[in-house]
């Protein structure tokens, strides 16, 4: 993917100014592209006067950042304690098996990314799977299968 430099400049412009703004700039870039393109990381480091080593350290330290592009659909499996005691591990295992990837990976067709998250705070609904900001609660293995099937169906229809 070709990233227009002017677009990155615009994002950084909005965040520049405050001390310590590298993290918020990278957050905005991550939000925009759903990952941190190399060009953006370099540009952010130059523009904000932060050594590239520090920008890279930040990008790899925090869970919110990814150096690789994400899939079209992002499935987040909540691994909070309430979800855990209600069986989220089984749900994760199932979805990993179904998609053929481990948590943290993206399918080869770039359709699905699978992530685990530490508690989305909707504990009454556990186990929870969040598919692109939509919460599916009280997950069972069957419901997990159905969720993926439905997403795939939406995709083939397009």
């Amino acid at each position, binding site marked *: 993917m070709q990233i227009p430099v002017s677009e990155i400049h615009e994002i950084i412009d909005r965040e520049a100014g405050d*001390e310590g703004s590298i993290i*918020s700039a990278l*957050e905005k870039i991550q939000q925009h592209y759903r990952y941190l393109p190399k060009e953006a990381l370099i540009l952010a480091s130059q523009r904000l006067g932060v050594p590239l080593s520090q920008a890279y350290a930040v990008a790899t330290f925090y869970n919110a950042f990814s150096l690789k592009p994400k899939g079209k659909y992002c499935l987040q499996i909540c691994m909070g*304690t309430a979800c*855990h005691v209600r069986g989220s591990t089984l749900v994760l295992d199932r979805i990993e098996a179904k998609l053929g990837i481990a948590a943290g990976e993206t399918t080869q067709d770039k359709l699905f990314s699978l992530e685990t998250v530490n*508690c*989305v*705070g909707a504990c009454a609904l556990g186990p929870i799977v969040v598919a692109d900001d939509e919460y599916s609660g009280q997950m069972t*293995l069957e419901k997990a299968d159905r969720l993926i099937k439905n997403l795939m169906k939406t995709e083939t229809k397009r």
Partner: protein
Amino acid sequence: MNRLQDVKEFQAHQTVLAAGWDESKPCLRVCDGTGCRALGSQKVLKDLRDELDKVQLNAEIEVVGTGCPGFCEYGPLITIYPQRISYLKVQPKDVSDIVNQTLLSGEVIDRLLFTDPDTGEHIVKEHDLPFYIKQKRSVLAMNGRIDPTQINDYLALGGYSSLVKALTSMSPENVIADVKTSGLRGRGGAGFPTGLKWEICRSNVQTVGTGYIICNADEGDPGAFMDRSIMEGNPHLVIEGMIIGAYAIGLSQGYVYIRAEYPLAVENLKIALHQAEEVGLLGQNILGSESDFDLDIRLGAGAFVCGEETALLASIEGKIGEPQPRPPYPAQSGLWGKPTNINNVETWANVPGIIEHGGQEYASIGSENSKGTKIFSVVGKINNTGLVEVPMGITLREVIFDIGGGIPDGKEFKAAQLGGPSGGCIPADHLDVEIDYESLTSLGAIMGSGGLVVADEDTCMVDFAAYFMRFTQEESCGKCVPCRVGTKAMLETLERICAGDGRPGDIEYLIELGEEIKRSSLCGLGQTAPNPVLSTIRYFRDEYEAHIADHTCAAKVCKGLITYSVIDENCTGCMVCLRNCPEGAIQGEKKEVHAIDADLCTRCGMCMSVCKFDAILVE
């Protein structure tokens, strides 16, 4: 609106708003917090407004989206004013009945009411729900009543009066003295006396001439969401607490460090900051006084360790969240080397109440050394998952059984885990413990931020301990060896035990290593990481021994120690499990008893999940 120029203008404005606040007028208050949103509250809100439009009642009956009142298990929640009828689990299909039957005909809809599980009786009014009766809601008092995106709602109910009181009739020293008298201790977990913290910071600020105050809203403990609900449901309460703190300590710049994983809280906080600034409660010369205070938001980027104060400061400075050795404490040398006062969301949210009613009144609630109320998020194997605000000193039994409604499906209570990855568990024998900082610590748990996870007979305590250890091992920043390597070694041992490869001496090894990690780690994360393991060994050593010596997992959780089989008498030969088994490990013909091949079975639990005849046995 225009900035309020002075206290007089503020009071006049507030008087008008208070007079206009009328809870005897018909109004539908719909919880629109994250929990209820996940259950569909946004659609319910929209449909309610459309339906009222249709019957032309939209001018007379208001529909308000509020913050979370706490009863998450039964969301989406609606409270109908003025009667305060509480409707639970409301779905879009119920909307027309609510409008036509309740609003137009005055009939109560039984199916949307809470049913007392003991008596079968329907409970109509919100304040009669057993979930709320034993609570003492002061920090959460406005959650569920006000629209968090409207500063006028907060003002109408007396919001920012405590700030005015502090600015007009109390010196900074008096404010600190009052907070000290209140006995308020840090709600983030460690329980350090808040007034003392402010006093130390103030004296350093006076020497250095500058500094910062910070709200730690990086609520990272899995299973804890009280800070999120305060910020979503009543962000001005936190802002007011911080302005009072800034006045007391003598500072004019603050930050709220908040998790990016809480988008709604961030949004509502942003709106609130904007509104507070607009009316002159933030910025230069607050309400015409000499005090200035600017408050900015910093988003966390998903690192648990940033809840630790020195790591949090590094993160605000744009660095990776690695903790620093203390001393120097942030009050001495914090953000950009300046004196910094950090309190968590719930602590700040307690401040306006203390100033309003006086420290002494606040100190009259609670136990000897722990004053006021504490919010717990009661989750896990519990009937009434939700947020609970209770006076310190209440027993754990009351929280879990009277408020939480006990354990679902008639299962046996096993333990309550408090304090998340830094905490420990409390078994059934100690259910009558009165909750305060010291009593919980003496039992091997901690108050923590208030996550209270209930485990039942189906929870394996070894797996539970491994879960927390996996969490801290992943979240360890890697700076110090005891935490980086030690948690890994503990996790490997626990995983080995869960896989059925436990060895004699493993328990002793875990204890020895755990104690060493606690002693030698750099920051709070490592110093507390072994706690979940040590406390489960303390109370459930027999479970560890059964895993190691007998290769059994009584809760039937650990995959290495269980087998799946078919109960011949129950199996109808319906072939559902056979078709669903991802490994092809089930054989059988239609209408004939099936069998599971133990060698092929990966114990994924699919057959159990799909069988409608209880014909799958795990042992």
